[in-house]
Structures are given as structure tokens and as C-alpha cells.
């Protein structure tokens, strides 16, 4: 089991998408830049579990991004991510997202499109810290 989560994620993404590891740069977004679809995401998460022992279910990804903030506080009635949600995303999940730039402009369902290789590696690292050692 490796604890080099960046390399583990790059290897998993490259393997699942049939890309060279040099194409899987840390700031590449999984969906938009690399073209991952839902079955690819599932494949990536299982590969990561295998190499790192860190288990993230595809169905947990949304919760993980929302960080326990209730639905009506994370999003606005118009379906955008709230300021509170943007601040959380910037602080924890996606530091590259500037809350000032995206305020009132980021649709909740589009958050996943900004999720990068590095963001996933960081998430795996956070999860590893929370999991009981086997």
C-alpha cells in the first residue's frame, strides 16, 4: 500500500482512461480535460482503493465535496453554490476555485467538472487520515 496519493491517483486515472501518466497532470480536470465518465470514475476509485487501501464510494463523492454542509445552505434556491459553499470548496476541496470569481455563477451540478487530479489526491489523503488503520 502506498501513501504517495498524488502518484497513486495519477496512475489510477491513467490506467482507467488509457492515458499516459504524463498526460494526467495535477491540474487537469477529470471530467472536462481528461474526459472521464461515470464508469471511469468508478474504475478510478476502485484502482485507488486497491493501491492505497483508501475507500471512497462514487456515491460519497458529492457528500465529500459538500463537507457535511446541509443542502439548503450549500446551494441557493436558483441551483447555484452559495457563498458558504464556495468558501468551503476553496478552503478544503478545490483551492483553485476563487469564491469572488464564482459567486452566484457556479451551478451545483457543475462543481464536479472543476474537480482535478490534485483535488482527488488531496481528498484521498484526507480520507486516509480519517480511516482506522487496517
Amino acid at each position, binding site marked *: 500500500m502506498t501513501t504517495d496519493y498524488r502518484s497513486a491517483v495519477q496512475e489510477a486515472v491513467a490506467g*482507467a482512461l488509457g492515458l499516459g501518466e504524463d498526460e494526467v497532470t495535477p491540474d487537469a480536470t477529470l471530467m472536462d480535460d481528461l474526459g472521464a465518465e461515470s*464508469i471511469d470514475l*468508478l*474504475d478510478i476509485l*476502485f484502482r485507488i*482503493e*486497491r493501491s492505497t487501501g483508501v475507500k471512497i464510494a462514487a456515491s460519497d463523492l458529492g457528500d465529500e465535496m459538500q463537507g457535511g454542509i446541509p443542502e439548503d445552505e450549500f446551494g441557493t434556491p436558483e441551483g447555484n453554490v452559495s457563498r458558504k459553499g464556495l468558501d468551503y470548496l476553496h478552503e478544503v476541496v478545490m483551492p483553485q476555485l476563487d469564491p469572488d470569481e464564482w459567486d452566484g455563477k457556479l451551478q451545483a451540478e457543475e462543481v464536479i467538472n472543476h474537480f482535478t487530479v490534485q483535488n482527488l489526491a488531496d481528498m484521498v489523503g484526507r480520507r486516509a487520515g480519517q480511516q482506522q488503520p487496517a
Partner: protein
Amino acid sequence: MTLEGRIALVTGASRGIGRGIAEALAAEGAAVAVNYRSGEAQAREVVDAIVSNGGRAVAVQGDVSEYAQAQRVIEQTIAELGGLHVLVNNAGIARDALIYNMEPQDWLDVMRVNFGGVFNCTKAAMGHFMGQREGSIVNISSVMGQRGWMGESNYSASKGAVNAFTRCAAMELVRFGVRVNAVLPGFVPTEMVEGLTGKDGGKGVLKQIPMRSFGEVEDVAQLVVFLSGPQAKYVTGALLPVDGGASAVLGTGAPL
């Protein structure tokens, strides 16, 4: 032995084709979980037969038409035998009747066991297979899923569903190193189909089978052994008949 070190679960394995499959897998070295719903004594006999031949087996109770029970069957197999590599979805029932006379519950019961059992066990086992990037699922379907037969509309529809599901499951699991195939037996005289093959010594059916003989449980079991093991590593999404040529023929295959 091709299945040395592998662990298999066969649903509905206390009798008929399921029993034959459990014994054939064990003969190739697999440890086998013999699932049964109500035939505990028969399931124990299958386990004893395997153990007395030097194999490893346990009996696991559970009605696979219920998802929670299917989950428990999978978990218990993994806990008692130490893993799972091969899932044989064999449990099946028949409730033959002309559609005109068929009770609505008769199609639902058949669908819940024959297709529901396949869905439930596949879903319950797939995470384990995906995590280890290894697994072979063999669904015991029927040539009736591809062709029609009087009085078997519910059974035929349930097996047609199994065939369609087999292809889709093969697509979704191929990325994870898991293969999914179906075996389609023709006429194999077991308790379940004795109404069909028992009449007149089966003459009315036999003359429609190009090979002029019924299949044996072992014929089905050996194809399952092949699909379960490494020799079939490039085979997935396949629907393979074992029927003495029955489904190859058009009409009777010659002028009457």
C-alpha cells in the same frame, strides 16, 4: 486442476443442475458454497459428497430473490470460505401454464427468482469482485430465453431477461477484470422439468433435438467450469447453448 485456490458460490445448489455444478467446480479444486433456500438436508448431502471427495464446501441458506438475503449469502460465503472468485447464478423455478390460465403471481414468482436472483447476487457480489479486480459470473439461463415453447411464457421471459442482463453486466464489469457469461441448457431432465421430459419417455421432445438425446447435468457443469476458470479469460458477454443442437435448427431442420 484449473480452479485450485478459487472460491465459488453456486445458488440453488442442493439439487439438479446446481448440484452438478457445485460438484464439478469442487472436482477442479474450487472451495464451494452450496446455497439453498429450503432443502437443507439435500444441501448437506452435496457438501458431504464434496468433502468426502477431498474438497472443501459449506452450505449457505438464503432466498436469493430477496436482496437482503442475497447480500447475506455473499457475505457469509466470503466469511466462511475466505473470499469469492466465481459466482454461479443458478437458482431457478418453473410455473408452467398457458398464459390464458396463468395466475399473475406465477409470472412474478418466476421473474423474482430467475431474474431477481441473478440481479441481486450480481449486485451484492460485484463490489468484492471489482475491488480484487478478479471475478467470473456465470448465469444459468436457458435456450427458452431465445426461443418459444408452449406454456413457458413466464420462464422464457425470465431467461430472456437473464440473457439481456448478462450482456449489460459484462459491459459494465469488463473494466474491472470481471467476466459475465451465460450458459443456456436445452433439455436436461431434472426434477424441475420432469413434466416436459418425463412424458412418453420424452419421445415427443427427443425427436426434435438434432443429437437425439437429452443433456446431462455434467454437460452443463463442464461448460460452467470452463467459463469460471482461466481458460476462458477472453470470454465475456457470451450466451452459450448446451443443447445438442436444439436451438440451431429451424423448424425440424428437414421436410416432414
